[in-house]
């Protein structure tokens, strides 16, 4: 379980790429530092032996909530698309996905 001490520039760029964030060079440097500081702080968790501890994903008492497969009223297309930046009829228009 590798926990690197400081993030490299390449790692910061990789994370930004996964998160679809365009960063300036200044941001890459700043966030790299800040994230490294926060992750260093998080290393404290390694002091705990959690080998036999089950993870908690959520603290709700509900499980597998179902409903009957009956159609019901939802948003009309014009309501749902009212905030679309680029709309054509009942479609949202985007830039080309493939070259």
């Amino acid at each position: 379980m590798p926990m690197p001490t400081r993030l490299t520039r390449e790692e910061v760029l990789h994370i930004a790429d996964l998160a679809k964030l365009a960063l300036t060079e200044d941001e890459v440097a700043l966030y790299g530092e800040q994230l490294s500081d926060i992750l260093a702080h998080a290393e404290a968790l390694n002091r705990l032996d959690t080998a036999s501890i089950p993870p908690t994903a959520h603290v709700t008492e509900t499980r597998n909530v179902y409903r009957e497969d009956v159609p019901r009223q939802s948003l009309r297309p014009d309501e749902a698309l009212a905030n679309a930046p680029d709309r054509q009829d009942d479609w949202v228009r985007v830039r080309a996905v493939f070259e």
Partner: protein
Amino acid sequence: MHPYALTIHEAAELLADGRITAVGLTEAVLARIAAVDGRVHAYLRVAAEDALAQAAEADRRRAAGEHHPLLGIPLAIKDVLCTAGLETTCGSRILEGFVPPYSATAVARLRAAGAVLLGKTNTDEFAMGSSTENSAYGPTHNPWDLDRVPGGSSGGSAAAVAAGECLGALGSDTGGSVRQPAAHCGVVGLKPTYGRVSRYGLVAFASSLDQVGPLARDVTDCALLLEAIAGHDPLDATSSERPVPAYRRALGRGVEGLRIGVPREYLVEGTQAEVAAAVEAALDVWRGLGAEILEVSLPHTEYALPTYYLLAPAEASSNLARYDGVRYGYSHPEVREMWDTFYRTRGAAFGPEVKRRIMLGTYALSAGYYDAYYLKAQQVRTLIKGDFDRALERCDVLVAPTTPTTAFRLGEKTADPLEMYLSDVFTLSLNLAGLPGISVPCGFSGGLPIGVQVIGGAFQEEIVLQAAHAYEQATAWRRTPPL
């Protein structure tokens, strides 16, 4: 007393007696907003015309024989909750101009009860922050000292309640964002048990931690607001089916024989002496009222902060992936191909704290690091929850400070994210454990409010409210800030 300074239950009596109308009350609060919000900046937008129309409707409903404690009561809504037809930005540029086509369930329930919605209050961007300084629209100022923060992320709601700019408000609490600003602004703020209040329409930050919570001037008001918004919602699969008690009936039961646990790990270095002293004095009040005080231990307390700052950003990185410039919100105009839309929209319109947390969360979930960070944090979450379950076997509620210090100055903690995160050290654990907690005013230091926190077991809001109410009735901390 100025109508804007009334509590909800005081105003409800006057409304019921016909001594004030909902329109008159709303006009008074709107006038107060006009008088002070230029300095406080609690609101991002005030919907005055709509509010007056809703108030007139409330007066008509009352004349037709309806009565409800919230009928005609003017309230404010944190801008992370969707309000149909009213712009909702989450304090972000990426949702500037976004008008939701639906209302959050909590909001809809308040409207159904006849409450008047005054407008949307300021918030740290996407509820990420502890000071409301991360709002893309400028910070909110603490009504007790305008050079200081109101706390966050529900700083706008807390400041609005404190300043008389509404009679009550809704906020959201993921790591302390209702309780901490309540403490800093000298008002009451409650985070319900996870699942007690529907999250439908609450713009998601961390789905396993978020809860909608009320802020008000006293415990009775919080109980009334909670009663109105709590309960199962088919639109939120994480909402509990447990029936909603009439929380107002828990008030006045007193604390004779109540066992109050004080976690020894919460007596930390870095807690301001006056805060610690105020909490000690509060414990004395409870003791005097017949409660039994005992020391308990939450041994994994020191791990709550790193646990939270891995889990919350991880969940946020997933929840905020939807802001891509395609279906709503800001869309970067200078793009050649699809991917540019994603990268440039998000790069341009998210603020630094949001980007930091998205990146932290993305890293913690990424291949090769998931086990070391995210899974590990989930395992520690189990340990933290276990601490509370064990402590609450020996006592009915826990009491702790809400915050380690009184409100800090604007700009004081913005340079170091970690320092900012430390403000939530007493509140985070409850979100991890899913437990209810309330902050009530318990004193002042240098003119700045101090809050004490009462924590209960899951779905034990009645006992939490009962204990908080007993303390409140035995003391007199309700004041209006010198605005």
